[in-house]
C-alpha cells in the first residue's frame, strides 16, 4: 500500500469511527445509566438521514436541514422518553427488547408510508463539494474531512459536558448508583430525559452527516445498530471514552480489514470484539 492510499484509508477509518462514536455514545449512556437496551437506537440514525433528505429537498440546503433537524431530533427523543422509555426503567430486559424492537418496525413502516421505499441521495453542500488532490489519480473528498471535524468538535464538547459540568457529574454518578443520585434530591427523571434526547440527537446527527455519502435507504439503521453495540461492548458499557476508543478501533479494523484482508473483512470487527472481551471482559474503559 502506498502512502497516498494509506492516508486515504486512515482518513476513512477516522471518519467512519467518529461517526460511529456519535451513534454509540448515546447508546452506551442510555444503556449504562438507565439500564435500557435500546434496539431502536439505530432507527434514530435512519430517522436523521431521512430528516436530512426531506429537509434538504424542502430547503435546498443540508446545513439548514441539520440546523432544523437537531432540535427536531431532540424533541423526538424527549417525547419518546416521556411516552415510552420512562416506563421501561423498572422492567426487565425482555420487555425492553420487545418494545424497542417493536419501535424499529413502527419507525420503518412510518418511513415507508410517509416517504416510500426508494433509495435517495442528498447533495453535498456546494462549499464542501470538492476534493483534495493527493496524487495524480487519488483525491480525498473535503466533505468527509468536514464530517470528521464536526465529530471531533462534538467529542470535545461531550467531553467537556461529562467531565466538567454538574450535569456530567450527575450522569457519571447515575452510572454508578442511580438510587443514591435520587436520594441526594436530584430529579433523575429529568436527567434521564435530557440524556436520552441528547443520545437521539447525536444518532440522528450522525445519520444527517452520513446521508450524502451513504445515501438514504430503508433499514439503514439496522447495520449501524449492530456495529454500535459492538462499540459499546468493546468500550465498556456506560463509558463514553470507551465508546470513542472502541469506535476508532472498529473504524480502523473495518476499513483496513476490507483492504488488507478482504476474504474475512465481514468478520474482523467481531474478531476484534472477541479478543478485547477475552482480554478485558468489562470492556476497555469500564472505569471511566
Amino acid at each position: 500500500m502506498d502512502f497516498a492510499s494509506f492516508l486515504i484509508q486512515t482518513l476513512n477509518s477516522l471518519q467512519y469511527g467518529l461517526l460511529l462514536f456519535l451513534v454509540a455514545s448515546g447508546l452506551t449512556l442510555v444503556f449504562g445509566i438507565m439500564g435500557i437496551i435500546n434496539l431502536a437506537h439505530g432507527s434514530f440514525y435512519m430517522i436523521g438521514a431521512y430528516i436530512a433528505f426531506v429537509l434538504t429537498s424542502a430547503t435546498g440546503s443540508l446545513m439548514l436541514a441539520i440546523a432544523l433537524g437537531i432540535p427536531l431530533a431532540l424533541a423526538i427523543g424527549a417525547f419518546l422518553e416521556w411516552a415510552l422509555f420512562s416506563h421501561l426503567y423498572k422492567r426487565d430486559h425482555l420487555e425492553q427488547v420487545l418494545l424497542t424492537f417493536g419501535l424499529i418496525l413502527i419507525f420503518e413502516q412510518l418511513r415507508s408510508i410517509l416517504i416510500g421505499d426508494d433509495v435517495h441521495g442528498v447533495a453535498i453542500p456546494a462549499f464542501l463539494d470538492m476534493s483534495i488532490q493527493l496524487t495524480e489519480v487519488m483525491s480525498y473528498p473535503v466533505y468527509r474531512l468536514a464530517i470528521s471535524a464536526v465529530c471531533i468538535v462534538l467529542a470535545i464538547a461531550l467531553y467537556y459536558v461529562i467531565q466538567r459540568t454538574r450535569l456530567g457529574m450527575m450522569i457519571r454518578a447515575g452510572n454508578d448508583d442511580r438510587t443514591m443520585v435520587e436520594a441526594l434530591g436530584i430529579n433523575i427523571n429529568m436527567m434521564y430525559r435530557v440524556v436520552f434526547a441528547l443520545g437521539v440527537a447525536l444518532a440522528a446527527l450522525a445519520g444527517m452527516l452520513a446521508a450524502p455519502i451513504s445515501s438514504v435507504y430503508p433499514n439503514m439503521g439496522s447495520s449501524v445498530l449492530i456495529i454500535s453495540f459492538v462499540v459499546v461492548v468493546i468500550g465498556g458499557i456506560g463509558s463514553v471514552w470507551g465508546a470513542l476508543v472502541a469506535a476508532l478501533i472498529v473504524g480502523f479494523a473495518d476499513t483496513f480489514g476490507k483492504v488488507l484482508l478482504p476474504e474475512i473483512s465481514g468478520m474482523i470487527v467481531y474478531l476484534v470484539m472477541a479478543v478485547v472481551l477475552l482480554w478485558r471482559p468489562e470492556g476497555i474503559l469500564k472505569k471511566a
Partner: protein
Amino acid sequence: MSNMLLEAKELHTYYGASHILHGIDFNIREGEGIALMGRNGMGKSTLIKSMLGIVRPKHGRVLVRGDDYTRSRTYQTAQQGIAYVPEGRGIFKSLSVRENLLMSARAGIDGRREWTFDRVMDTFPRLGERINNGGWQLSGGEQQMLTIGRALMTNPDLLILDEATEGLAPLIAMEIWRIVKEIRKTGIATVIVDKNHGAVTSICDRAMILVKGQVVFAGTSDEIRAQPELIQKHLGV
C-alpha cells in the same frame, strides 16, 4: 415543641412475600436526634428506605413536615431537606472527591447555604488531602466522611446515617462520632443506626428498638441507658 419533620404512620413494607415492617410508627422533630436500634434484619434500613420512597410501603403513610409523601419520588422527599447516608456508603466511585461533593450541592429548604464546599473541607480535613482522588481510592473511613460531607452539601434539616461506623477501625469510628456530634450541635436533626449503643445513645435524645419489624421500645436515651437488660435482650449478641 418544635415542628415535626418526618413521620411514619403504621408502615407495612414487604420484600416480595416477606413481611418486613409490621405497622411501624416513627417521628422526628426539628433538631432532634434519634438512635434507631435493633439487631441485623430487624427492619431498620427498611424503615429508612420506606420513608425515603426507595422501597414502597404497602400500607401506612409517610409525612414530611405534615404533608403526605407516601407516594412521592425519592428525590422529592430528599428535596424537603432530608439527606441520607446509606449503609455501605454509596459514594460515586467514578467521581473524584471534589465532584462527589459538588454534584450534590444545593441550598437548604429555606434557601440557606451554611454548608459550603469550604466548610465541609474544614470539617473533614482528611478529605482535603484526597480532593482529586477518585472515589474508588478512598479508605472506608474516608468514604464515610465523604458521604457525610456530600449529604451536608445539600444543607439538610435531617441527616439519616445508616450504619454510621460499620466496618471502621476504632480510631476512625471515634473521628466519625466526633464529627456527628459537631453536626448535631448545628441543629440538624439526626437519625442514626449503629451497633455502638453507648455512642449513639449519648449523641441522640431518643432511642427506638426494632425487633422483627415492630417497635419494642421507644423512649429517651436516658431511659434506655437505665435499662441495660433491654439492651441485653434486644441488642446483645
